[in-house]
């Protein structure tokens, strides 16, 4: 499997001896460039066009995050998998109101399924699970527009986040979900995890013929790769939230791993490393796929969602979103 690399230290990324080197002062580390698929840069890193040109030869995607761990942007090399046909058909599914609503509904359905899956085994959160189920069963049949669907999803997510207080350590209690900027540790964790999954999904979309800017649930606004947001919806509860639960309940992450400023909160470098390690091992965890009859990693499942979407667009097979069966 091609690996993802995370750079949290400060230094210089440099092309040397036909491979990449990461230099931290006197210390040098060679990177086996052939096996790298994406590099996530959290530290202060210098790099020049010579390095960028070499990176793009291998189709490696660079993701940049700012000091606080928020996603800043990506460097996508010239795309090698392009198919005008798929893009045109993808756009057709956006233009047709019914077809767009179907896909948007699929994403939300899968997201809600995974949220409920997270709560299912927790006795403390039973009331919330029932509340989510009620809300979903009540709302799912009378959706006539994307904004209604978004509203329903928002309400469910509210209940879901409230339930966190029941089973997470008291230090990490949350009144409500706050973004831009997150004001307490748990919100900071969710934001950090979500930006990671967003960029990972973008890397996977980049490897397929899909156009990352044509989306269905989110408006394809001009400033973001919103298809990545759509697909991330499925994987946020499946990957990010489970990683957070594990790290907090096993006390691997404590309050000391967060820096708080006047009105915002973020993970410090040590905390980021702990989170990234767990996140990466989650992505590499494999599950036996029943139809493919082989082991597929969580990262592989993101790619499979992209392939399923392509099949849907070209009229091969109707899209049915991932619902974790294990």
């Amino acid at each position, binding site marked *: *499997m091609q690996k993802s690399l*995370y750079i949290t230290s400060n230094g210089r990324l440099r092309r040397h001896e036909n491979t990449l080197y990461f230099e931290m002062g006197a210390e040098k580390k060679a990177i*086996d460039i052939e096996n790298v698929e994406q590099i996530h840069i959290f530290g202060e890193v210098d790099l020049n066009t010579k390095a960028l040109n070499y990176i793009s030869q291998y189709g490696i995607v660079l993701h940049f995050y700012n000091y606080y761990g928020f996603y800043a942007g990506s460097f996508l090399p010239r795309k090698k998998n392009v198919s005008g046909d798929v893009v045109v058909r993808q756009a057709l599914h956006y233009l047709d109101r019914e077809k767009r609503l179907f896909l948007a509904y699929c994403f939300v359905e899968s997201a809600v399924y995974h949220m409920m899956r997270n709560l299912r085994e927790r006795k403390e959160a039973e009331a919330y699970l029932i509340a989510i189920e009620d809300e979903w069963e009540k709302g799912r049949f009378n959706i006539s527009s994307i904004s209604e669907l978004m509203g329903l999803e928002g309400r469910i997510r509210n209940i879901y986040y409230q339930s966190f207080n029941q089973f997470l350590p008291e230090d990490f209690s949350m009144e409500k979900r706050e973004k831009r900027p997150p004001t307490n540790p748990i919100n900071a964790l969710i934001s950090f995890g979500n930006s990671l999954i967003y960029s990972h999904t973008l890397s996977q979309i980049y490897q397929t013929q899909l156009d990352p800017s044509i989306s269905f649930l989110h408006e394809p606004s001009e400033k973001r790769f919103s298809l990545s947001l759509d697909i991330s919806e499925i994987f946020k509860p499946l990957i990010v939230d489970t990683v957070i639960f594990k790290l907090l309940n096993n006390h691997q992450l404590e309050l000391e791993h967060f820096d708080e400023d006047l009105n915002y909160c973020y993970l410090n470098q040590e905390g980021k490393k702990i989170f990234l390690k767990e996140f*990466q091992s989650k992505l590499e965890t494999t599950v036996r796929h029943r139809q493919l009859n082989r082991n597929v990693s969580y990262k592989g499942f993101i790619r499979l969602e992209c392939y399923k979407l392509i099949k849907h667009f070209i009229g091969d097979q109707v899209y049915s979103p991932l619902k974790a069966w294990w």
Partner: protein
Amino acid sequence: MFVIVTYDINEKRVNKVRKILKKYFTWVQNSVFEGEITYGKLEKCKRELLSVIEKDEDSVYFYEMDYKLVCNKKVLGQEKNYDSVII
């Protein structure tokens, strides 16, 4: 698959071989590399090496294992290089 590569090459060509292996594996010790790699990439690497080495003088050994877990690595003394995806 997990592969350990060791080599014994004439001084004239040793740097060329080292540079090729660097792209595919992680350096562990002098003349030793290791790392996870796909079958296709491994073949590509061998091709590249074949164009550089002299067959009747140099040798490169590949210890190929299907799974990394098969190989139990124990270190005595200094560990010269660590392999981690988080730098």
